[in-house]
């Protein structure tokens, strides 16, 4: 089994190396590459609430976009990145951009002030945003890492992806917690979904099996810090 070296930093983030690049896994669910001043978030699913209303007539609260923006702006204020990378599925559907309330649209546009935005496209938003600032790409290379939405099967050293919405379920005694998490084997990394209405897929699900050769490390998000969780502590749903 690979021995992973990691440590918990001052801000509750988990420091480690992904394919030789130094990285911090933040308890917000964002990835921070300090040397490049680059922040990465995955699966925001903006306007997921209104998507249910439009498609199914199901009136979920319309506040998910502003909730996600609140979180995002807090991280930007803390880190002041020069580059912000979205790992795809930034909108829940292609028409989501058109349903944005005006004040939310302006807040998203303002994210680009003083920094570069990179929108990798995902399966929910294949064309990427049309009217918002930033570059729309299929995938991006930076600091020896490859950023794309959906992880490719087999060994992909240096790949940073989203799409799977990883979540870890941990049991001890009589209590059980289920949290969003990062998953990494030191060679590649899958980010948790950042959006307010995004659920999680248990990392014991077969969907994760083709990505990691052996047991990987789950970094579960807590309210104040990230918790490294060993494979043996994980439980299926």
């Amino acid at each position, binding site marked *: 089994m690979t*021995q992973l070296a990691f440590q918990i930093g001052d801000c509750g983030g988990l420091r480690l190396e992904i394919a030789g690049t130094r990285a911090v896994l933040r308890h917000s669910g964002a990835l921070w590459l300090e040397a490049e001043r680059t922040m990465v978030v995955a699966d925001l699913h903006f306007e997921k609430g*209104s998507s*249910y*209303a*439009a*498609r*199914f*007539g*199901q*009136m*979920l*609260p*319309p*506040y*998910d976009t*502003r*909730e996600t923006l609140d979180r995002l702006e807090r991280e930007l204020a803390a880190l002041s990145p020069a580059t912000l990378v979205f790992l795809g599925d930034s909108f829940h559907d292609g028409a989501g951009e058109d*349903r944005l*309330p005006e004040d939310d649209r302006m807040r998203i546009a303002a994210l680009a002030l003083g920094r570069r935005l990179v929108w990798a496209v995902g399966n929910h938003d294949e064309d990427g945003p049309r009217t918002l600032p930033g570059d729309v790409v299929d995938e991006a290379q930076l600091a020896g890492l490859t950023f794309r939405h959906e992880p490719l099967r087999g060994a992909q050293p240096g790949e940073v992806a989203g799409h799977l*919405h990883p*979540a870890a379920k*941990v*049991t*001890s*005694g*009589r*209590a*059980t*917690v*289920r*949290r969003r998490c990062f998953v990494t084997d030191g060679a590649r990394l899958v980010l948790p979904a950042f959006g*307010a*209405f*995004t*659920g*999680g*897929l248990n990392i014991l*699900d*077969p*969907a994760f099996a083709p990505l990691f050769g052996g047991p990987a*490390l789950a970094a*579960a998000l*807590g*309210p*104040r810090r990230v*918790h*490294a*969780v*060993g*494979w*043996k*502590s994980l*439980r*299926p*749903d």
Partner: protein
Amino acid sequence: MLAATALPPRFEQWFAARGWAPRPHQLAMVEKGRQGRDALLIAPTGGGKTLAGFLPSLIELSERAPRNTPAGVHTLYISPLKALAVDIERNLATPIREMGLNIVAESRTGDTGEARKQRQRLRPPDILLTTPEQLALFCAWEGAREYFADLSCVIIDEAHAIWPSKRGDLLSLGLARLQRFAPNMRRVGLSATVDDPDLVRRWLGVNLPDPPPLGKVSRSDGGGSEADLQQAPSGPSGHLPQEGRISHSVDLVLGQGGAQPIVEVLVSGGRVPWAGHTAEHAMAEIYEIIKGARTALVFVNTRFQAEFAFQELWKLNDDGLAIALHHGSLAAEQRRKVEAAMARGEIRAVVCTSTLDMGIDWGDVDLVIQLAAPKGASRMVQRIGRANHRLDEPSRAILAPANRFEFLECRAAADAILGGHLDGEPARIGALDVLAQHIMGCACSEPFAPTELYDEVRAAGPYADLSWEDFETVVDFVSTGGYALRTYDKFRRIVPGQDGLWRARNAQAVLAHRMNVGAIVSPAMINVRIGGGKRPMGGRKVGEAEEGFFEAMTPGDTFVFAGQVWRFNSLVGADAFVTPAPDKDPKMPSWGGSKFPLSTYLAGRVRAMMHDEREWPALPPDVQEWLNYQKVRSIIPDQDEMLLETFPHGKRFHLVCYPFEGRLAHTTLAMLLTRRLDRLGVGPLGFVANDYAVAIWSLKPMDQLDLDELFAQDMLGDDLEAWLDESFLMKRAFKACALISGLIERRHPGMEKSGRQVTFSTDLIYDVLRRHQPDHLLLRCARADAATGSLDVARLGDMLARIGGGRIRHAPLDHVSPFAVPIMLEIGRERAPGDAAGEMVLAEAEEDLIAEAMA
């Protein structure tokens, strides 16, 4: 006998041929039918109650003139249990056949086949037997108005079991709807004994504004031969309600009481244990008692207790008696087997939970045993009623207390039953999430005018005081979700037309509603299947357990389920795989006490009994000794006082108080006290609450605190709000409200993503809504539900008022008191939930990882 109510000859002859005479309450119900009056029949089990409900309809149908057009449904019968509806269908067939009546009676439940349902829609039966959920579906039918235009009578069976619940709210809204379709429809309620019949009458009836005062009804005693009848004069209609005074249309008919039951409290081997919930000490004697009975029902309060008692009895069962098990988690097929064997008289005892509290007649039961305290006198009366369905013979019941407080409680319950005192229920205020579901259903059926629907809804008892503002808020919620951010106005589920009428937006909205009807929200269930190995295949299903039952288990753990010991192998999706482990000692599940809180009435009796030393000599010696020790070493409080003890124990300081208000109210109290103690710098470390007491332990002593200040009533203000919003109870309540109101669907479109489940939990919705619109309708609903259901806030408030003004009796002690022993023994079995605990779990997992890396 009342001459005016004589039965038609055909019916007279049928009774005579069976060797029966019609009972007074049966004739009274016939008379009510002839007068076209609504009626509530309250009668003990075994008095021909169901027949009394149907007789007026059978007579009316037998006398109807032949007609050319096919008739609609004449009588709609509604039962809380599917199985009961099917059972009554079978029972009705006998008189219909033997009297040669040309009447079709058919059941329709969720289990009825599509073909039969289609046929029933085209050719309605004369009598349709169904459930509240089916009625909600009828209300959402297109053409419901025509289908029920000929409806003459609705019969609600087991009304006492339905009315004080969300199902009851939904049913009463359905009745109000039917009344609009068929203005001459009569309402008939059938109920077991209840403490306050007026509450059930108000729920059952059409609510009329501005009532004339009601006369008082008197109860016939055990030997009385004539039913007491009471007629509420019909009030004027069409007025606005005045000062919330609401009347109803329902006459009361009381059946004669049966013979006085014989109730004993069992003191096994002359002793009552200090603590515990299982009555393990009494098993051997209970086994002997079962041997002496023909058929016994052994009632317990939780599924865990059922499994435990069943195991213990079989360990003793050298005679190989047929002892069976019946509870809600067993596979339906297995329960049916037990029920059938019961009906055939092949079973000597059934260990059961509240699943057998009501309904179908189980044959020749001659003894009811209650293991551990019944927690309420009404429930116990209901359970005793399961024994001996012949009125002239007394039912026999034995209460087996599991600890000393429970002994007092059992004694109080036995006295209450003999004295005819029952637990009171508070009046019911209709839930707004249920109203939302009903409004959507109405829109699916036909366009509605809001003002008319508002009047219709207020005719339903639980909604009599509904304000127009709340009604409008609910309509807006149904239409757009009711958000301050008006982004969904273009996606409305119901839309107003040019004519001012509201209708469902489209067929999709109608379909979605029909898939989600009902007010029962049960926790997600895991199938328990036999299977092992790495990739288990779907083996035989043993039963179902709540989600969470297996969460704390690791493969290899053993547990008791369905009366056997099993090894837990794996959890795959919604299936838990297990293999039999008959030789293993099961790793015991932790017993919660009772899931029912102690009733206010019984709690009052227990306090009185404890306080009154003259009652002590009648108690078993060890209970007497316990009370005497308490008197010497601590205090026996006055009846209107609350005892509070403080003492050091081990390395900690303890505070134990004894409000006797039930586990729910106590847990809430403990949560709030802990917050206050934390603010006072006492460093509370944990708490445990049971039906009688609360214990809190801390780093620093608590005997110098200002207790009146600590228990001041304002803890139910901001402290409660602040705690509640973070609480998992609120999240659970919110989920139920979101399901019932239609905000989220039972079958969530888009949830199944290419075969794997992405869990999109209502917790996320709750968190976002709470931050952005804390006054949203569903949060209001959830707070109200949590406050009544899970927290018993009202009861806690009454208690704080009772002990306010210096009625806390403080006993500063230097050691544990006799009263404190039972709850001290429970410490360590509970764990306070919360964020901190969650972090601890993760921290432990981290240690686990370090160990893994060092290996």
